[in-house]
Every structure is written in structure tokens, then in C-alpha cells.
């Protein structure tokens, strides 16, 4: 349905940044990582190198392979083929683990222990922990420090996991869907906290399916879809190179055929309402005006990351089977 977009691989910056990577040891690395669960291919050859001090968001729909990628980076699971490295070491190595803090999607702690007791327990696992007070403050749990974990609300529990992830004062922080279950306000405070921790020189890898979160927070967005990295670039690049402008208008009697040969990326025509993405909206509109098409309710806006993301995943899906595009575009 859509014309082929730019070749996504062209602007994966991994290769371009190769010279930098060779100068500075990567903090986290997946090298041609494959992971199969039985006959399901969760990852199909992923290369990611994250340098110290980067804040990287891994973005993708549910089941895209984000959590699997994090599990390999942490050594929680072993790649079926390829390698995972933490500071050049096997991620299961205790010394490598001592340099990273982790917040997982599905995990538990002893519900009878209080927040401060759990933070103290986890601090003992790390060689250079920060003070319990600081970890609790970073998570914004000062008022809940003496509350048992089992009595915390969902959002507070997420913040407890954050306190446990940072209390070892790790160099790299892995956050798997960290803001799930948080209301808007605590999510905002939480993201500020992450930014603050990052600004002290830490490396942060987070997965999310909230696009605004990635857009706002990350320097670099890695888009994962169906077990492959389909884009790896700063959020602004992803937005500009894929999406351009979002154009929508009403025009009676227009069909998809009217747009043949025009530079659009995603086109939807439904009951006289037209939506498309294009980096050259002037060309398209000019052509339509020349043909005398009556256009009403015209809107041309800069596409956000969400549209870029949809365009990317739709493009990737289209390459494998157009039948799946509808699901992604819907």
C-alpha cells in the first residue's frame, strides 16, 4: 500500500559510530544475538553496542523482543547464537553484574520486609553501594521507608524496584518497562529521577512502549520489531527521516489511485477522509489542487515519534507480508 520508505538499515548509526566504539569500550553489547524459545524466534540477529554514558530507549510493540534482548544483556538468558557482553565480560560474571542495576518487569521481593530493609539487603550485594537514604530519596520513597513491601501500591512498588536497582550505585542501569502501573504525576517524577541519575554519568538502557517517554528521555532510540532492530538513531532523526509531515484532509471522491506515483509513506483513505505521511507534502497537495480536487479541513503537522514508529514497523511488516500491516497501522 505504501511506497517503499527509505532503507531503514541505511541510517542505523552503528556502523558509522564504529570508530568511536573502538576507542571506548562498549558498556553493553549484543553481537549478532539470536534467541529461540522452542520454535519461536524471539531475536533474529541483533547487534547493539551501548557506550558508557548513553541513555538508550528500546522501543517496540509487545512481543517484539525487547525483554529478551535485556535478558541476554543481563545474562538471565543465554543467546541461542551470537554473544552478549557487559563491559567486555560474560554478563553472568559476578564482577560484571556488580556494575549494573536492574529493574525487571516481572519480579518479586519478600513482601514482609520493609522498604529500607530491602534496600539494605540489596546494597550488600554491591561493592560500592550508595547510602540507603539516597537510594530511597532517588525513588521518592522517603515516606514509605518503614512500610512493608507487601503494603505498597502498584506505583510505589515500581519505585521500590527502582530503589533496589540504583542502590548499588551501578554504572549501567537496566529498566524494563519501568513506568508500568504509575499514574501521570508519579511517572513524571520518576522520569525526572532517571534523568538526574543519568546526568551523573551513568549509562541507562530502558525498554518502553510509551513513545513519548522514549522521545523525551532518550538520546538514542533502538526500535525492535519481530526480533530485529529496524531502526537505531536519535529520536529526532527517526522522526525526520521516516515521517516528515502528517497530512490529513477531507476530499470527496478521492481514491488511493489518485495518489499513484506521489511521495507519500502511509496512506489511508476512508469515507472521503485522507491521512498520509510525507516528507514533501507540498508536491502532493500541489498535484491535487492542479487536478481540481476540492480539499477541506486540511491539516499539515510535524509527525511525532509514534507515527514514525508506526511507519517503521509497518514498513518492516510490509517487507515480510503485507497482510500484517493492517494490524500495525490500526
Amino acid at each position, binding site marked *: 500500500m505504501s511506497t517503499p520508505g527509505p532503507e531503514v538499515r541505511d541510517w542505523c548509526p552503528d556502523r558509522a559510530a564504529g570508530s568511536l566504539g573502538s576507542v*571506548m*569500550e562498549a558498556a553493553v553489547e549484543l553481537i549478532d544475538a539470536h534467541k529461540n524459545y522452542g520454535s519461536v524466534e524471539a531475536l533474529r540477529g541483533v547487534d547493539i553496542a551501548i557506550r*558508557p*554514558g548513553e541513555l538508550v530507549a528500546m522501543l517496540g510493540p509487545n512481543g517484539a523482543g525487547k525483554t529478551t534482548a535485556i535478558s541476554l544483556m*543481563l545474562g*538471565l*538468558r*543465554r543467546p541461542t547464537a551470537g554473544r552478549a557482553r557487559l*563491559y567486555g565480560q560474560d554478563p553472568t560474571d*559476578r*564482577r560484571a*553484574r*556488580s*556494575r549494573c542495576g*536492574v529493574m*525487571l518487569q*516481572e*519480579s*518479586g*521481593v*519478600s*513482601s*514482609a*520486609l520493609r522498604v529500607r*530493609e*530491602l534496600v*539494605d*539487603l*540489596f*546494597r*550488600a*550485594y*554491591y*561493592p*560500592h553501594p550508595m547510602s540507603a537514604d539516597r537510594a530511597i530519596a532517588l525513588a521518592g520513597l522517603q515516606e514509605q521507608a518503614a512500610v*512493608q513491601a507487601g503494603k505498597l501500591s502498584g506505583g510505589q512498588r515500581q519505585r521500590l*524496584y527502582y530503589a*533496589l536497582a540504583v542502590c*548499588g550505585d551501578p*554504572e549501567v542501569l*537496566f529498566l524494563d518497562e519501568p513506568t508500568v502501573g504509575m499514574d501521570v504525576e508519579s511517572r513524571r517524577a520518576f522520569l525526572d529521577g532517571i534523568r538526574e541519575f543519568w546526568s*551523573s*554519568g551513568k549509562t541507562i538502557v530502558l525498554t518502553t512502549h510509551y513513545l513519548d517517554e522514549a522521545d523525551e528521555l532518550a538520546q538514542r532510540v533502538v526500535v525492535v520489531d519481530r526480533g530485529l532492530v529496524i531502526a537505531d538513531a536519535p529520536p529526532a532523526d527517526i522522526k525526520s527521516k521516516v515521517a516528515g509531515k502528517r497530512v490529513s484532509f477531507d476530499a470527496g471522491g478521492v481514491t488511493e489511485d489518485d495518489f499513484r506515483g506521489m511521495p507519500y509513506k502511509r496512506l489511508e483513505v476512508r469515507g472521503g477522509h485522507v491521512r498520509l505521511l510525507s516528507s514533501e507534502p507540498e508536491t502532493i497537495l500541489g498535484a491535487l489542487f492542479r487536478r481540481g480536487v476540492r480539499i477541506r479541513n486540511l491539516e499539515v503537522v510535524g509527525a511525532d515519534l509514534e507515527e514514525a514508529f508506526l511507519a517503521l514497523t509497518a514498513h518492516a511488516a510490509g517487507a515480510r507480508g503485507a497482510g500484517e500491516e493492517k494490524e500495525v497501522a490500526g
Partner: protein
Amino acid sequence: MNAEITSRPSLDAAPLWRMAVAQVRATLLYYWRVPTFFIFSMALPVMFYLFFGLPNAHRKLPDGTTVGSLVMAHMGAYAVSSILVFNIGIGRANNRAQKLDLLQRATPLPGWIALLADTIGAIALSLVSLLVLFVFASLAGGVELGAADWATLTLRLIAGALPLLGLGLAIGYGSGPNAAPALSNLIYLPMSFASGLFVPLQQLPDFIGRIAPFLPTYHYAQMVDHGLSKTDETLPVAVAWLVAWGVVLFGLAARAYRADQARKFS
């Protein structure tokens, strides 16, 4: 800022003893806050002592032991082994269900330190439980032992139960949180009865007397009785049987553990 990061020693980890101390502390805090199993393993032996021990506490057996001290030793064996089987077994099954092991696995804490801490916690509980039982038996049942005998008895009660830790772990890794309590009871209670822990074997049907020598709890009871009363087998034989059972039970536990880990972490 990166210079600061790279200047940090890269080969570094927290000392294991510090992890172990923190882990033991957390385990004890947990038992303090959730005393269900603990109370259970402490109250039942005392109650059984009340039923089986007190009525004949001062009656002397042919070898000179009082019924009161022998029943106390057996209830002590029941207390310690039930803590190892139930607390560890059900505890591990619950932890797995609540995915405690998942987050722990991503930290630098080695799994064996966590296991060691659980074991130390269970032994600490056992000692408390034994103390309560011993005090009760001395006051109510008039049991009198020399200081060395108390110490030897305590040591044998703890050491002889260690093979049953393997049983607890096998249940904890091989079954879920719902099945674990039932399974523990189903295996452990009949085994204790059939080993003469509650009622002397002479008073039980003959076929049980023939099965008993194959059960780990029988040899545990023999080891504990040694020094208090006349026993059917010598101490080295009892210890050898317990070691053999330890190998079998820890082997089963290791199998269940590996299967569980392979499901989650391979």
C-alpha cells in the same frame, strides 16, 4: 564524567561474607514477621510432648532412660526436620511463585549464598524451637541431662537432619506453592511415624518395622537416640545411612533445581 567511570576498578565485587550476613538477616526478619511456619514447628513438638511424653515422663525404660527424655529427643527430631522440610520446601516454592528468584538472579548475589542463608536461618529457628522444647521437657517432664549431653543431643539433632534439607529443596524446586505443603505432609508425616519418632516401632504393625530401616528418619532417630538409650544400630552405621540418603535427596534436589533453572534462565 566518563573518565571517572573508567578509572573505577573493573574487576570488583562485594565480599561474599557481607552478602551472606545481609541475607541471613533478611531471612530471620522474614520469619519474625511471618511466624506461621515457625510457630507451627515450635508448637506442635511441644504439644506432642504433652500427649506422648508427659503421661509416662518419669517411667524408666529397661536401659535406664526415662520415657520423658526419649520422647523429648524424638520431638526435637520432628521439630528440626519439619523446619528443614517445610520451611525450606514451602518457602522455596513460594519464592519461585512470587518470582523472588528472578530479580535476585540479576544481582551479583550467588545462588549458593542465598541457599546457605536459608539453611542458616532454618538452623537458627531449629535452635529456638529446641530450646523451647527442652525447657518445657525439663520443667514439666523432669528431664535431667548433663551439659555435655544437652550439647551432644542438640548437635546430633541438627546434623542428622541435614539430609532432609535435600528433601525440602527437592519439594521446593519440584512443586508449586499449592502442591508443596500437601506434598511435604504426605511424604514427611508418614515417614516420621513409620520411623518410630512418635510411637515406638514395637507398638506398630510388623510390616512397618520391616520398612523402617530403609527410611532416612529411622536412622536419624537412631543417631539421636544414641547416647540416651540402647539403639538397634551403631552410630557409624546410622551416620553412613544418613550420608547415603543425603546423596540421594540432594541429588533429587539438584535435578529439580536444574530443571527449574533451565525453564527460566536458558
